[in-house]
Structure formats: C-alpha cells, structure tokens
C-alpha cells in the first residue's frame, strides 16, 4: 500500500509536468490554431537557464526562477513576432507557421547544444532533495513543489479564461477569429500574449522537471510528445483538460511499469498507444469545450 501511495505522489508530479506542457500548447492553439511543437525546446532552454543561474551562479531559487521565466516570456514573444506574425499577416496557409516552428525547434535545440555542450547538466530543485511525509502519503520535496506550482498555474489560467475580460477575448478569438476582430479585439495582442504565456508555462515545466532528468539538449522532444498526448487525451477545449490529460498519461505510464507484467521497455509505448487510441476514438479529448456543454 505504501508503494502505491508513494507512486501516486510521483505520478501526480509527473502528470503535472505533462499538464503544464499541454497547457503550453493549448495557450497557443486555442486562439490561433497553430500547433507549436517547439514548446519542448522552450522547456529545454529554461532548464539550461536554471543550470546557469542556479547551479553555476548559485542565485537564490526564487530569483533564478523569476529570471528564467521572464527570459522565456521574451523568447516566446520574439518567436511569434519574427516567425509567425509575418506568415499570418501574409495570409499564408495554416500549415506554414507550424512548419516554421518546426524549423525553430531544430534551431533552438542546436543552439542549446552549441552553447551548453552535449553533456547533461545539473539543475537544483527548489527545496533540496529531501523527502516529505504527510501521513500515509510520502514523496520528494520537489514532487510536492511541482504539484503546488502546477495547481497555482492552472488555477490562474482557469481564472483568466473564466473570469477576466482578457481571457474571454482569448476565447472569442478561439471561436471565431474574424468575428472577434470585428468586435474590436486586438488579434495581434492576443497572439503575442498567447505565445509569451505559452513560453512562460513551458519554462516552468522545464525548470521543474530538470532536477530529476538533468538539463540536456535532447530533453525537448520527448516532453513535447508527452505534452501533446496529454492534450489530446484531455481535450484542447478546456484548461482543466490539459491537467487531466497529463495526470491520466503519467498514471498510465508509471502504474503499468510498476504493476503490469509487461517488459518495462514496452511501457514506453503506453503513451503512444494511448495517443493513437484517443485520436481514433475520441480526437476531441475527454473534456469538451465550454460551449458544447451547455
């Protein structure tokens, strides 16, 4: 039973990471329809930023975290400004920004490998590697920190979309771009904000997962795929979907390894099989968007 509860904490933490990456996709896809595979590389850059500021220069954690997230907000904004906006304004087919971002994925990754080398680098966790026991439930400090941060981010995102005017304008753009523009919503601002926010969330994911997996220039693609799988499972329509999808994915992965009599290598296939199944059976994901519910 002990094992089970411990695994619950660990899987929840991993699920939160996947959920954050899924949210990162969602923030861009909802208003613009663009799928940005480079979110994984944003996480990688954040992880290396964490290495630089927190391991090398030994800044205090909150300060380092703040600077890394801010840097990524800027990078997200710049990415949109220079590789997506020209395409959108030119009326390019919807595939074009996706391809440009795929090119950027390679650019970001090679940049990381060029600047930081090909070796994995350590990134410190927020509260050290100790262990916390809350009654029958136990997990590492970092796991609890991840869960706390993810909860905060998702709560904030939910508040933003449900309760603020700005959030509603995002929704409006998602539903109908042209109508939204006609209603006076500044499409450009929404798109810029979307990209910046997406990068910020991806940064958090990278910074939070790096203490365990090390900052490594190849860490982006697996994260991107897992995040996208989480998004498909949970549904692109709602913020909560991203988190739900992430949790389902992480639990499926880890509990299969622990309890299923299946060779562990095949457990790597679990997210892929889930992805394929969902794409075939329920591409819209588990949670339907707001408007379809009422």
């Amino acid at each position, binding site marked *: 039973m002990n094992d089970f509860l411990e695994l619950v904490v660990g899987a929840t933490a991993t699920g939160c990471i996947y959920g954050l990456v899924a949210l990162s996709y969602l923030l861009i896809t909802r208003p613009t329809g663009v799928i940005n595979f480079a979110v994984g590389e944003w996480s990688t850059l954040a992880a290396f930023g964490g290495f630089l500021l927190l391991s090398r220069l030994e800044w205090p954690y909150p300060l380092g975290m703040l600077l890394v997230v801010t840097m990524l907000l800027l990078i997200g904004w710049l990415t949109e400004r220079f590789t997506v906006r020209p395409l959108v304004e030119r009326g390019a087919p919807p595939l074009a920004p996706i391809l*440009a971002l795929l*090119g950027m994925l390679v650019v970001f990754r090679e940049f990381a490998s060029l600047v930081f080398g090909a070796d994995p680098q350590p990134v410190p966790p927020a509260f050290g590697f100790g262990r916390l026991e809350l009654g029958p439930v136990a997990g590492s400090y970092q796991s609890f920190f991840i869960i706390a941060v993810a909860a905060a981010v998702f709560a904030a995102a939910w508040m933003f979309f449900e309760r603020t005017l700005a959030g509603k304008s995002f929704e409006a753009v998602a539903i109908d771009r042209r109508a939204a523009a006609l209603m006076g919503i500044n499409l450009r601002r929404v798109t810029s904000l979307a990209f910046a926010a997406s990068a910020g969330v991806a940064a958090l994911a990278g910074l939070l997962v790096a203490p365990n997996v090390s900052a490594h220039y190849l860490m982006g693609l697996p994260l991107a795929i897992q995040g996208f799988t989480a998004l498909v499972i949970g549904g692109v329509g709602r913020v909560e979907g991203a988190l739900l999808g992430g949790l389902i994915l992480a639990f499926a992965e880890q509990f299969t390894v622990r309890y299923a009599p299946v060779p562990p290598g095949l457990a790597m*296939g679990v997210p892929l099989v889930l992805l*394929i199944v969902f*794409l075939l059976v329920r591409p819209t994901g588990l949670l339907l968007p707001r408007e379809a519910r009422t």
Partner: protein
Amino acid sequence: MKSLLGMTAVAVVLSAVAFMLGSYQTDIYRKLLLWTTLALSYNFLFGIAGQVAFSHFTFYGIGAYAILILLFQVGLPLPLAILAGIALCVVLALVVAIPATRLEGFYLALATLAFAQLFIVVLNEGGTVTGAGGGLANYRLPDVFGVRVTGPWYTVVIVVLLLSTFATLWRLDRSWFGRACRAVRDNPEAAQAMGVNVARTKIIAYTITSAMAGVAGMVYAFVDNTVNPPIFGLQNSFLLLFMVIVGGSGRHAGAIIGAALLYLMPFLLSPLIGHHHALVFGVVMVAVVLFQPKGLIGVWDALVARRKLVP
C-alpha cells in the same frame, strides 16, 4: 525527357558514375540516390496529396527490417521475400490510413508521429527478431540466379529504383488520380462535391507512397548491411520534411533539389560549421517558409521567368 529513351539515357549516365567512384564516394552516392527516391515519394504524399505525415521514413525502416526478417529468419527466397515485404507495408499503411482519414491535418501528423515512435519502441523491444538496440547485422544480399550483385552493380539497382519511382510518380501525378489528390489537398469539400471519393483518394495516396518508401528500405538494407533503431528515428523524418519544403513541395524537381542539397550540405559545410549542420537546416527551413514558400524551385522559376522577360 520523360520518354523511355530519355529515362534510359539518364539511367546509363547515373550508372556509369557508379563505376567510377571509390568506396567512400560510392557510399555517399548510393545514399544520395536513396534519399532522392524517398524525397520524391514523400513529396507526392505531402506536396501533392497534402498529407502531413511523419511516417514515411518509418516505412523505409519497415521495408528494411521486413526483408531481412523474411529472408533470414523466415527463410523465404528473395523474390517471395520482396513480395511479402511489399504486402506487409501495404497492410500496415492501410492500418494507419483507414482510421486516419477521419483525422484532419494536424491530428494526422500526430498519429503518424506516434506510429513512428511506436515502431522504434517495437524495434528496441523486439529481442532476437529485430536485434533490439543493436539491430541486425552480419548478413549480405543472397545471390540472384547464382549471381552476386555487389559493388557498382548494386548501385545500378538503386538507380533503377530511383528512376522507376520517379516514372511511377510522374505518371500518377499526370493522371486523374494526381488531379484528385490535388483537389483533396486544396479543398476536400469541393472535391467531394465534384464526385471525388475523398477518403479513398487519401488512403490510396498514403498506401502507395508508403509502400514505395518500404521498397526503398528493402534496397537500403543491403547498402550498409546493418539496420538498427537509431537509423530510423525521428531526426530523419524531419530531415525528409525539410528536404521537400526547401526544395519546393509539390514539384518533383523540388524534391530532387531539396534532397541533393540537404544530403550533401553536411559534407561540404563540414569544414566550416563542424557538426552543427542541423542548425543550418533549421535556419534554412525557417527562412524558406518565411521568405520563399515555394522553395528553391520557386526561386529557380522566378529566375527563369525573369530571363524570359529580358530580350
């Protein structure tokens, strides 16, 4: 140029080159021909039929492993192994394509990406059948009618593969099927309204091109005489996409230029940029998408048009 005579002439020239090259250069030449073959079939799938798929290189791998397993583990004679391998590729392509017709643009890309990853997982866990992480090695092409096809003669086989792939795609493109594919690519609803069976067109396009990739894979298996999981990873799928886009998607000439350029570039630029050629690819890709979406072939067309204007 596309007449039989033209084709034969090109075949002779390309084959003659094979007899003049040293061991290292032959290796590069063969791989160049294979990449061009793949780019041509991928161009049809992506550029002409409009399907964003990451599974093309995976079928290359499926073809390669299939022929090896069928030849050396199941023990089939070569001609039968080839046919069985093609059949396997067709079946797997249908398995992917039929459900995928319901998926739009991006979801298709994702499903094929997952399929590609799944293939690698299966390879890694395949134990002695697939050779797991180390792959299969230590084999060689069985004699065909008692003749050992090796060296420059094998390169001729690759030339034949390339040209027959090209010829087939050219014909398909020119036919009503090619038009149907383009119609589906540009506007599925309109195509449907005009009587094109959208789902069937998509499935056929996917299956044919994937089977072509599979056949290329079978030929590849005997080039390096080794197959292992890293060869068929996602890196190469992206590279294929980049080749087609940089060259100019939708145009056969574009695929050829893109393949040649991106394949040879690392060798030529190596002294300059060391091993960071991936960075150059990424930058070139972004540049092409931003500034010349028609690819290099678009640049060529513009130059030719300008030439024509000047008396």
